[in-house]
C-alpha cells in the first residue's frame, strides 16, 4: 500500500493536526477574502447585501472545507484523484446536456444553497489527476511520447467541454494549469519549446497571410481578432469595459479616493464591478498602495505554496501544490492583466475577492490540499 511510503510516524495525528496547519497561509487567505468583503460592501453602495454577506457565508463554508480537506492525509486525496476527475467530467457533460435543453449557456448546477460550476471544479481536478498520473508513472518515462499523449488527453477533455459552453477564459485556465503540471513533472523542455514554436508559427502565419491571396482566415474573422486583442477598436462594446476599468484604476492615484468614494463605481461606469472588474474598484478606492498590497498578498500566498511544494519531497504532493499555485497565479494575473489593459477581456475572476461561489469553494478546497500536503509532509 502506497501510504506506507510516507513517514507516518513523524506526522501529527488526530486533532493535533490542526495545530500543524500552515496558519500563516490561512491568515493570508482570510486577509484576501476580507479585502473581497470590503470591496463587495463598497460596490453595493455600503451594504452587506446583495454580495458581501453571501460571500462571507461561502468563505466560512470554504474555510471549513479547507480544514476538513487539510486534516485528511494527502495520499488519500491522491487515491481520490481519478474519482474526482471522473466526477468533474461527468458534471461537465451533465451541464452540457441539460444546458442545451434548458436553453442558453448553462454553466452551473443548482445545489440549492449555491450554484456549482463544474468548470471551476475541473481546474483543480485536472491538476489532481495529472499529479496522480505522474506519481504513478515511472520517472524515466515522463518524456516518452506515448506517456506525454495521455496527460494531453486528460487536459483536452475538460478544456474541450468548457470551450463549447462557451467559456474561453476557464478553458484557457485549465489548459495552462494542466500544462504547468506537465512541465513541473519534468517532461523534456523540447516538447514545450516545440509547442511554443508551433503556436508562434501558427499565429505568425495567420497574421502574415492577412491581405494576401493565401489568407487563412476571412476578413471578418481578422476583425474579430483585432477587437479581441485591442478592445479600444470597439469603444461601445468590449472597449467600454476596458476604458472605464483603466479610468477607475488610474484615477485612484497613490492612495485612492477613499473607501466608498470611487466615482466610477458609484456612477455605475464600471460594469461587472462585483465580479471580474472588482480589482479596479479596489484600485480606485485604495490607490496604488491598496492595489500593490493585494498583489503582494497574492505573491506571499504563492511563496507559501512553493515552500510547501519544495518541502513535501513527495511527488504527488509537490505537483498538486504547485498545480494549485499555478492555477491561483493564473487567476489573479490574468484578471489583473485584463483589467489593466494588458490582456484581452476573458471572463476570469479575481480569486477570493470576486463575487462567486464555485470559484471560492473550489479554491478553498484546493488550498485544503496544500494544507494537507503541509501537515502530512515527510519529516
Amino acid at each position, binding site marked *: 500500500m502506497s501510504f506506507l*511510503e510516507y513517514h507516518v510516524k513523524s506526522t501529527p495525528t488526530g486533532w493535533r493536526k490542526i495545530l500543524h496547519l500552515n496558519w500563516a497561509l490561512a491568515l493570508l487567505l482570510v486577509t484576501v477574502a476580507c479585502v473581497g468583503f470590503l470591496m463587495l460592501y463598497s460596490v453595493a453602495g455600503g451594504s452587506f447585501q446583495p454580495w458581501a454577506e453571501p460571500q462571507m457565508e461561502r468563505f466560512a463554508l470554504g474555510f471549513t472545507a479547507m480544514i476538513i480537506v487539510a486534516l485528511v492525509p494527502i495520499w488519500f486525496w491522491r487515491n481520490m484523484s481519478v474519482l474526482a476527475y471522473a466526477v468533474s467530467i461527468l458534471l461537465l457533460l451533465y451541464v452540457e446536456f441539460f444546458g442545451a435543453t434548458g436553453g442558453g449557456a448553462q454553466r452551473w448546477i443548482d445545489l440549492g444553497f449555491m450554484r456549482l460550476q463544474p468548470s471551476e471544479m475541473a481546474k483543480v481536478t485536472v491538476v489532481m489527476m495529472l499529479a496522480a498520473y505522474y506519481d*504513478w508513472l*515511472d*520517472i524515466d518515462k515522463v518524456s516518452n511520447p506515448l506517456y506525454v499523449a495521455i496527460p494531453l488527453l486528460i487536459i483536452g477533455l475538460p478544456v474541450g467541454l468548457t470551450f463549447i459552453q462557451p467559456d474561453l477564459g476557464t478553458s484557457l485556465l485549465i489548459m495552462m494549469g494542466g500544462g*504547468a503540471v506537465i*512541465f*513541473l*513533472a*519534468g517532461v523534456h523542455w523540447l516538447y514545450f519549446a516545440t509547442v511554443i514554436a508551433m503556436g508562434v508559427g501558427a499565429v505568425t502565419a495567420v497574421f502574415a497571410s492577412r491581405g494576401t491571396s493565401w489568407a487563412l482566415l476571412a476578413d471578418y474573422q481578422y476583425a474579430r481578432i483585432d477587437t479581441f486583442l485591442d478592445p479600444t477598436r470597439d469603444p461601445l462594446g468590449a472597449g467600454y469595459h476596458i476604458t*472605464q476599468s*483603466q*479610468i*477607475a*484604476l*488610474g*484615477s*485612484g*492615484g*497613490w492612495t485612492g479616493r477613499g473607501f466608498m468614494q470611487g*466615482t*466610477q463605481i*458609484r*456612477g*455605475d*461606469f464600471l460594469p461587472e464591478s462585483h465580479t471580474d472588474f472588482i480589482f479596479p474598484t479596489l*484600485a480606485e478606492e485604495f*490607490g*496604488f498602495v491598496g*492595489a*500593490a498590497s493585494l*498583489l503582494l498578498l*497574492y*505573491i506571499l500566498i*504563492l511563496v507559501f505554496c*512553493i515552500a510547501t*511544494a*519544495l518541502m513535501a*519531497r513527495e*511527488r504527488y504532493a*509537490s*505537483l498538486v501544490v*504547485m498545480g494549485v*499555485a*499555478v492555477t491561483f*497565479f493564473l487567476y489573479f*494575473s490574468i484578471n*489583473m*492583466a485584463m483589467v*489593466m489593459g*494588458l490582456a484581452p477581456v476573458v471572463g476570469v475572476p479575481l480569486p477570493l475577492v470576486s463575487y462567486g461561489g464555485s470559484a471560492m469553494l473550489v479554491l478553498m478546497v484546493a488550498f485544503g490540499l496544500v494544507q494537507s500536503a503541509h501537515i502530512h509532509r515527510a519529516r
Partner: protein
Amino acid sequence: MKRTQREIEDSVRTITRRSLVVGGLFAGTGAVLAGRMRYLQVERADDFRLLAEENRINLRLLPPARGLIFDRRGVLLAGNEQNYRITIVREDAGDVDAVLDEVARLVNLDLVTLERAREEIRNRPSFVPVTIADRLSWEELSAVAVNAPALPGVNPEVGLSRVYPLGADFAHVVGYVGPVSDWYLQQTGDTDPVLQIPDFQVGRYNIEDKAESMLRGRAGTSRVEVNASGRIMRELDRDPATPGSDVQLTVDAGLQNYVEARLEGESAGAVIMDCQTGDLLALASAPTFDPNLFVRGISTTQWNGLNNDPYRPLANKATQGLYPPGSTYKMIVALAALEGGFVTANETVSCPGHMEVGNRRFHCWRRGGHGRVDIVGAIMESCDVYFYELAQRVGIENISAMARRFGCGVRHDLPMSGVAEGLAPTMEWKRRRFDQDWVVGDTLNASIGQGFVLSSPLHLAVMTARLATGRMIEPTLVRSVNGVPSDRPEPEDLGINPDHLALVHEGMWRVTNSSRGTAYRYRADDEGFAFAGKTGTSQVRNITAAERAAGVIRNEDLPWERRDHGLFVGFAPYNNPRYAAAVIVEHGGGSAAAAPIARDILLRAQVGDVPPPELYPVSLRRSIEAMHGEMRIFDAPPQPSGRTPGHGGQGA
C-alpha cells in the same frame, strides 16, 4: 510501485528545479503587473482622474425666463405662462399602457398625442421623463395629481411658455416666438448653449426676434453628478439663470386695439405716432392673426389658411407694405417748389383737367378741372395739374431730396422683422435699375405719388409728423429696457421755412375743414380735436385712353384686387400737433376708404378712449355710434399688469 531512493531524489530535484523556474515566472509576471499598476496609478493618475471627472460631472442648463414686453403704460403684451404638463417615467410606471389609459381617462387626450407619447416612451431610456401632454388646465393637472397613487411614474410638471394676452392685436408689433429649429441655428449661427434646452423658445418675428438678445437672458447651469446611464445622482452646485430684460414699447395697447378693430374687414395698414417725440403709438396691419398659434405649434390647415388668404394676414402692411403714396406726396412737391423758389404762395396755375407734356396727355383726377388754383387750393382740392406744373419746374432730384428729408425712401431703424426702404426715385436710380433715361413724364407721375414712388404707412406717418412739427422726428418703438429709458436725442429742426410749412398746413387744414376740401365729409366737428390731413388715391392699373374716353370705370364695378388703394395722412390737433397718422386701405376704392379711419384713430388718440359721437358732424353721429358698438374693442382699457417697469404709468 516502490521507488528507489535515487528515483525520489531525482524527482525532487526535477520538481524543485522546475518549481523555481515557475516561481521565477511568478515573480516576473508580478513585477510586470506592479509596473503596470504604477504606470496607470502613479504616472498617469492625473489623466485618468480627469477622465473620471468627465464621466461623472454633467452640466445641466437652466432655462432663463424670457423678458416681458409691456406697452407704454405697463400693460403686458408678451408674458410667460405656467405651462402645466404631465410626464411619465417608463421604469417607474410599470405597465405603461395601463397607466396611459388611466391618464387618458382623467385628461382629454387625442389619439395622435397618445400615439406620439407611446412612441417616444419606447424610444427613450427608461428613466427619462417623456411628456405625455402639455398645456393642460389647472383642473386637469389637479386631477392627475390627486390620482397620483393610481398613476405610478406620472408626474405633473410646470414649465414656462410664451403667451400673448392681447393676441392678434399685437401680432404685427410684438411678433411671436417659436421652437429652435435646425434652420434657425444655421441661419443665425447662434451658438448660445441655451438653445440646446429642450422646448426652448426663440423670437421668430418682429420685436421678439429683433430684441432676442435682450429678451433671452442667460442660461444658468447646474453641475450634477451623473451615473453611467445619465441619471442624476446629486447636484454639486448651481448658477441660477439670469432672466431676460423686460422691454417696454412706445405703443399704447388701447389705441392699438382700437386701430386693429377699426381696420377689421379691410386689407389695410395704419400707423399713428406721437409727432413730438416719434413714439409709435400703434402699428396696425389688417387682417392679423393670433401669435399664440405659432407658439403652440400651428396646424397645416391654419397655416395654409393664413398663407393663402388674398388679404395676406401674415404681411405687415404698416412697415413692410409699399404703395404708391398718391396725392399724399403732394406736400413734398409743394415744399420742394417753395423751398427752391420755383413757386410763390400767390401764384396760380390754371387747371383745365389735363396737361399736355411732350405728346402725352396727363389727366387731373377731376375731369372738368379745377380752374385757377394756388398752392393752398391745390392741396385742398388735390389738383393734379397744379403739381404737374410744379414738378416740371422743380425736377425729380429736388422732389426726391425733399422726400428723403421727410423720411420717405429711407429705411427707418426699428426692431421689426420687415421695415421697407421705400423709394424716392432719382435719374441715376432709373438708369441703374432699368438702364433707361429719366423722362419728364416720370417726374409728372412722381409729383402725384404715382409711377416709381413707393412708401409704407410708416414712411407717410413719419412724413406727416415732420410736416406737422418741422422737426426731424425719428420713429421709435422701444421706450425702455429693464426700466432704463431708451436714449433719444432731441429732434433737430428740418430747416424748412416756417412760412412755407404754414402754407402746407393751411392746405391740409382745408382738406378736412373747408367745404371744398377732399375730405370735408370726414372732419371732426370740434375745435379742440380738429385735424388737418391729405387724401390720396393710388392706382394699381393703367387707365387706357379708350377707357378714359368712354368714362373711367367706377371702382365699385371693378374686382377687388384692381380697385384703387385709398390713403390718408393727417395730424391733430391742428393748433398744437401731437399725433400724426397714416392709413392705407388696399383696394379701398379711393381715399374715402382711408380718411374716416384716420379721423377715428386720431380722435381715439386725443380722447384716450372711444371717441364720443359729439366730436363728429351731426349727420354722422348715429352711424358712428353704431359702428363703435359693433367694433371688437376691449370692454375696459387693459389694466396695467402687476410687474410694471419702474418709470412707466403715464398716459399716452
